[in-house]
């Protein structure tokens, strides 16, 4: 069966404008001594302003690499080998980030100013021996021509805005003097210092305790509204998705297997993987002794990518002679787009 590639059009009802970032056919590979690791293998993605797009998947599914590919901060030996990342700065222009030289001035101007990013480990994502305030001021100075005093004022304002008490004192603090939550707030303050149009948050709450998690997510949501920015949130936590997402892409081994708006995904997950993920979450009213079904097996080694559909080795509904032959394309099925042969004939027949 020839591979069918379909460009999913943005939902015209909810978004009349063009997406902020439009990713098409993105492939990011790692060229290691032992072989090529296909961390991102043909991903299409649209991120809209003022919307939160969640990327959901197990660990090792290439989510982070996908996010980092946007900012072109994938470490060697990783490389974008194919695809485009179209970014629209809002002035009518559009640039393909995938074609830009990493480290070029144009790209660096976009980083931190147009697109900002926060990371999973607030403990180690801040420079360990530089004062927090200085790190924020530094970001401001990178993109704005302001005086030192102004930058400091802005930084303290930002710290205040992200909910850090006594911001002018904390301005002088070193990261190791702050708690994890405070550090993540500081990270957010730093990311927001130039009012970015897109915030990429790579598992921002994983390392935090539950209460702090909620606070941080709320903060991100609030700030999204206020700054009207797009948010790309990477997580393996369905709870987080349920709480903040508007659009969701489910990824497995470097591919998007299902995508749609949050309600469709939760209401009617189609892909066996998505379904399995949903089942592994405890639900309200569930019996206490109920044993959560886990997805069987582990994510295969990236170098031992199964032929055909990558998920077939763990899929309870895998069809011999079908799933191991070809890779399914992403096709509309129900309310979501799904990449699974279970639904392809159905769609085709329509």
């Amino acid at each position, binding site marked *: 069966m020839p591979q069918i590639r379909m460009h999913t059009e943005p939902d015209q009802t909810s978004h009349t404008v063009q997406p902020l970032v439009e990713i098409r056919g993105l492939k990011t590979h790692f060229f290691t001594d032992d072989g090529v690791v296909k961390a991102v293998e043909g991903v299409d993605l649209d991120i809209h302003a003022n919307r939160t797009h969640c990327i959901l998947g197990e660990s090792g599914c290439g989510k982070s690499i996908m996010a*980092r590919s946007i*900012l072109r*901060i994938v*470490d060697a030996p990783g490389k974008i080998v194919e695809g485009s990342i179209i970014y629209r700065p809002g002035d009518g222009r559009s640039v393909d980030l995938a074609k830009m030289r990493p*480290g070029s001035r144009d790209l*660096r*101007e*976009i*980083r*931190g*100013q147009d697109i*900002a*990013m926060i*990371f*999973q*480990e607030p403990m*180690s*994502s*801040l*420079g*360990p*021996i*530089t004062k927090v305030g200085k790190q924020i001021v*530094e*970001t401001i100075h*990178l*993109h704005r021509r302001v005086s030192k005093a102004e930058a400091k004022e802005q930084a303290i304002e930002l710290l205040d805005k992200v909910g850090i008490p*006594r911001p002018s*004192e904390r301005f*002088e603090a*070193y990261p*190791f003097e702050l708690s994890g939550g405070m550090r993540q707030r500081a*990270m957010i303050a*730093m990311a927001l210092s130039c009012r970015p149009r897109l915030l990429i948050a790579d598992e921002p709450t994983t390392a935090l305790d539950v209460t702090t998690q909620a606070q941080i997510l709320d903060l991100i949501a609030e700030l999204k509204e206020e700054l009207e920015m797009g948010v790309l949130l990477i997580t393996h936590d369905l709870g987080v998705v349920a709480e903040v997402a508007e659009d969701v892409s489910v990824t497995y081994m470097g591919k998007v297997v299902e995508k749609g708006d949050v309600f469709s995904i939760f209401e009617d997950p189609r892909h066996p993987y998505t379904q399995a993920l949903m089942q592994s979450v405890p639900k309200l009213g569930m019996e206490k002794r109920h044993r959560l079904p886990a997805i069987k097996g582990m994510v295969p080694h990236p170098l031992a990518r199964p032929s055909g559909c990558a998920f077939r080795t763990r899929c309870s509904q895998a069809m011999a002679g079908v799933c191991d032959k070809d890779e399914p394309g992403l096709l509309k099925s129900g309310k979501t787009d799904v990449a699974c042969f279970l639904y392809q004939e159905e769609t085709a027949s329509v």
Partner: protein
Amino acid sequence: MSSRHLAVFLWYHPWRATSAMFGFLYRRLLYMIPTVFLISVVTFVIIQLPPGDYLDTLAAELSDSGGLDEGTMQALRDQYGLGQPMYVQYLKWMSQILFHGNFGISFEKNIPVNDIIWDKLGWTFAISLMTLLFIWMTALPIGIYSAVRKYSAGDYIATFFGFIGLAVPNFLLALVMMYVAFKYFGQSVGGLVSPQYLGEPWTFDKFLDLLAHIWMPIVVVGTSGAAALIRIMRANLLDELYRPYVVTARAKGMSEFQLLLKYPVRVALNPFVSTIGWILPTLVSGEIIVAVVMNLPTTGPLLLRALLVQDMYLAGSLILLVSILTVIGTLVSDLLLAWIDPRIRYQ
């Protein structure tokens, strides 16, 4: 303001860093006292270790001139007051140093140790400083390059030469360099100035002449240190280069060069600062031989000679002073470390 308030005030006040530094400094200074005392005792033991005394050496040398003269020997033995118990000699020596700043007499030169050593210590110190600068100036960029371009041709070349620098004994390097300088550049060899400037007052020309000579010992002495530091810098920087905060900085839009210097290099700088602590004993001790071969007016040859002839107070004073300078150097480097890395201050 209550004491609790004061504490809070200090904690959050910008000065608190300074106060933490003072506590650190105070503690370290206190620790120095027993250390220095121990050093003085051990120094004295070391110089007393070899059997015999200065007069045996003198006797050996005089035999060259056609015979020994017991009269001379006897007079000299009285002269130097050798033969008292060791602890008496130690106490006398220490009390003279502590209360009069008098380090004793050089047996061989018959002048107060004070008159000989300070000049030489000055040169030692100056050359140490310049060597330190040389080491830093070569090791820093090369180390960074090696780490950033890991496994590149440049890295392999730097590594190779780094290990060569480690593997070649420096006195050998000194001898070969001196020979090359003599053979191909016709330079006067040894010493820090050309013979015509020896014993002359300092002029600009003499200073230029000094510069033309001093690079050689600095390179010779510094090579192995630089090589070691390149290795350390490379390893440390490699540890830091892939840390999340580097990615953060990159995501902020900083240029590679800027972020390299502002974040990982700063963190990896600790061993550089530590060199301040060890450069002095290394220069004085490990490089004695270089100073002998290259004929430098440093403490090295003086100390070696003093040890060989058992010129007890001269050798003892040099070891003592160098050790104390080392302790101070370690202190300075620790303070600098604490200054660079705030985490250390609060440990």
